[in-house]
């Protein structure tokens, strides 16, 4: 990963958001991933989503672990603070950072090796803790930087570039997240920006851990016939369960849906997510039913996509810990230090 400066070119007709910034202002350095990498499409979707949400760049915090996906935080929002930490341990950095400053917007970028193998524990516990962040898992079923080993999300029978078939069962992060009590669970495809952008926006606005599994094909090691994480396979087997439309707080809800097919969920900050169900028996707020439905779809060899589950009433880590609304980093020393007389008083109990 070299540091390549990307020239900032602004077309006069470029759209501007409420802060007067253009999508260009939300870009980062030039990607050093392989040409055609799914991850770059996810980066583009993130830029779009963050731009549309009018995020002040320096109020965004980008975190990652190690791997191809974890390199991507340098490729978007150059003026945001970023932290490329150690392999599989990004969730703990995020939890600590969020504990200290709850006012910033957190996005974690991870991969299937980072989240489902070395970092499986931290991934699971960040969900349990309901750390308020958007967590994007760029899922390609393969280790790219170390040249093509199977990851824990590789399907049984999926073949490597060398033709070897994987025989161990995959960890399905969506299933896992749902069973662990995640309050926002989505799956999308890097090749479907129209679906991905509203999901990312809703994820940013979710109060709690917003998990988005993005099938993101590895063009170099896992885009061949026989792979179940290739562009062709994903396009062919994608089953959009639910269409997501994110309506920010300040916008008027214009889209109209036929009675009974859409469900509006008000987010913590007052913005609204509109979910249009493909199957009108699908209830994205019924965890058990969602798990059953996804299981059925999977047995047909299809991949369910969309904002699959949403629960906006839950408490995040700060709710569990009952922390003050003011970010802890802003509390003055006078508030934090009990002082000499309190110390003298306390020590009366130590005799």
């Amino acid at each position, binding site marked *: 990963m070299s*540091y390549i400066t990307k020239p900032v070119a602004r077309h006069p007709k470029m759209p501007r958001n409420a802060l007067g910034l253009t999508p260009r202002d939300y870009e980062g350095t030039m990607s050093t991933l392989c040409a055609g990498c799914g991850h770059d499409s996810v980066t583009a979707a993130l830029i779009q989503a963050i731009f549309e949400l009018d995020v002040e760049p320096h109020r965004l915090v980008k975190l990652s672990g190690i791997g191809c996906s974890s390199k991507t935080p340098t490729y978007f929002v150059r003026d945001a603070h970023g932290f490329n930490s150690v392999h599989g341990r990004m969730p703990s950095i995020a939890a600590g950072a969020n504990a200290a400053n709850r006012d910033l917007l957190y996005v974690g970028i991870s991969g299937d090796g980072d989240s489902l193998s070395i970092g499986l524990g931290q991934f699971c516990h960040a969900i349990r803790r309901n750390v308020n962040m958007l967590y994007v898992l760029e899922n390609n079923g393969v280790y790219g930087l170390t040249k093509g080993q199977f990851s824990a999300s590789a399907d049984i029978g999926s073949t490597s570039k060398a033709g070897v078939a994987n025989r161990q069962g995959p960890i399905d992060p969506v299933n896992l997240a749902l069973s662990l009590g995640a309050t926002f669970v989505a799956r999308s495809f890097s090749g479907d920006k129209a679906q991905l952008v509203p999901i990312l926006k809703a994820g940013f606005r979710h109060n709690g851990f917003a998990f988005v599994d993005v099938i993101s094909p590895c063009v170099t090691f896992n885009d061949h016939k026989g792979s179940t994480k290739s562009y062709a396979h994903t396009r062919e087997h994608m089953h959009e369960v639910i269409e997501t439309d994110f309506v920010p707080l300040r916008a008027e809800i214009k889209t109209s849906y036929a009675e009974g097919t859409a469900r509006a969920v008000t987010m913590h900050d007052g913005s609204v997510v509109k979910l249009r169900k493909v199957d009108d028996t699908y209830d994205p707020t019924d965890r058990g039913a969602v798990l059953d439905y996804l299981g059925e779809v999977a047995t047909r060899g299809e991949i369910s996509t969309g904002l699959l589950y949403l629960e906006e009433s839950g408490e995040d880590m700060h709710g569990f810990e009952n922390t003050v609304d003011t970010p802890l980093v802003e509390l003055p020393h006078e508030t934090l230090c009990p002082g000499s007389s309190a110390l003298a008083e306390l020590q009366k109990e130590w005799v």
Partner: protein
Amino acid sequence: MDQPSASRINDFALKVATVNGTGSASANGLLLQALFRMGIPVSGKNVFPSNIQGLPTWYEIRVNKDGYTARSPEFQLIVAMNPESYARDIEEVVSGGWVIYDSSKELDDEFRRDDVTFIGLPLAQMCVEHFQGARARILMKNIMYVGALAALLEIDMDIVKGMLEEKFSHKKHLMDANYQAIDLGYNYVQEHYEHPLPIRLEKMDANRDKVMIHGNAAAALGCVYAGATVGAWYPITPSTSLMDGFTEYCKRFRVDPDTGKHNFCIIQAEDELAAAGMVIGASWMGARAFTPTSGPGISLMSEFIGLAYYAEVPSVFFDVQRTGPSTGMPTRTQQGDIMLCAYASHGDTKHIVLFPGDPRECFEFAVAAFDLTERFQTPVFVVSDLDIGMNDWVIPKLEWDDSYRPDRGKVLSAEQIEELERFYRYLDVDGDHIAARTLPGVHPKGSYFTRGSGHDKYGRYTEDSDAYMEVMDRLLEKVESAADHVPAPEVHRGEEASSIGIVSIGGCHWAVLEARDDLATRGIQVDYLRVRGFPFNQTVDDFLAEHDKVFVIEQNRDEQLRKLLLMETACSKETLYSVTYSGGQPLSKGHVLDGLAPYLEEALMGVGS
């Protein structure tokens, strides 16, 4: 052989042997506190098993009118309440000493010794006669031996009863039962045995302005006073009580009075790796954050420690050492992590390490650790041990200077960032090896990318040799420059110059002081330096250079402090001798003198004693 039958006032050690989980801890705590309130120098050491209930456990108390309260393994009196450990307990009492046992069941002849006095008390029998229910009978048996000891040793009964009143003021039925149990033990001794024993207590006034506390509580309080807001941890003996303490003091001092919400966030992590990550994340944001752990935790955290070192993120790690390697003996003490903490993580790393010698220093060094970690933007370790951390110590009252303000180091404010043309995270602009940092969210121009991968002084990713080495060289100079800022060593010198020196560390201090005085009475004057921080202060170098022979006394097998001194000072291998004890008990005078004996034989013979 010791002759305790000669009168020894305020100068003896006793040991209580009980069964883990039977409530003896509160009886022993009562005993220790009573002696403390009698104004006598006293220490209590809990020797407990890694077990919840059923295994043998011991509590050792030493009183010493001259103030020597390091552990003494010479027990003049044993309270043998656990038949399972009778054999070894009775064997341990010194010749001429006393054994108190429960005579409800006759003592087997095999345990009898001719050279000690057996004092049988029908405790179980009295419990059955006077108390209802199995639980009460077990608990009251413990309180009863406190009553018996009060008669045998002349513990002030007003003090004991006063403590019961304080403790059970809201539970009258418990107070009555405890009173009764105390009296039963006391009266039985009065009626059946000569008392007091020649070993006995007399009120003193040595504990004015002193308090009794364990190091973990003191360290926790230091974290509160330093302004720490985020604590992340994974439970591990013997550090757990540090986070228990932090929780307790935060609930007391840090709850917002208007909203009831917390001005702190304590996260019980899924493991030590995550705990370290949380500390780094929170510190990166600008909070004061810490994690308490023990050796196994430091092993697990090592990857993150390297990240914090290289990315220059403040972070405070408390290592309450226990006996290693691996799981080792989790409930025994040791100083086996000196080397680990000094250089934790792969690659070239070196850390600031503070070594408190008692709970008071745990408090003070906790505060210092946060200042140092922010000033030098690097991990700081506070390394205590099970003995300091978990045992109750009598220490001078803690003091606090209200003019204290946290040293945040070079943290740029929004105004300062605004004035910069451009911010570079790792650029040393004033030659002190420390680059300014910004906190996330403060100012758009302050943003930068934090990474554990190779970076240049501008904070950019690099694979360039020179750019990489430039940063690494600065880091070394930065950490070494902390030598003048870590707590200076404590130095004790005699009236005359001595060519012999002792260097020691942490909780060894009290046994070393006692041994040193002992040597002085035999005409051997040794100078003594206690290391309190790493990188070593120049005073350490000077002390080593000034002495022909220096004995390094520490509690591990591998001479870790000695080796660290050899690596990090100019002294030669030939001048540094090693005295080690690694068996898991707190160090005692005997360990020191036995270790020194072969070397000092010549000197001892020279004084003709």
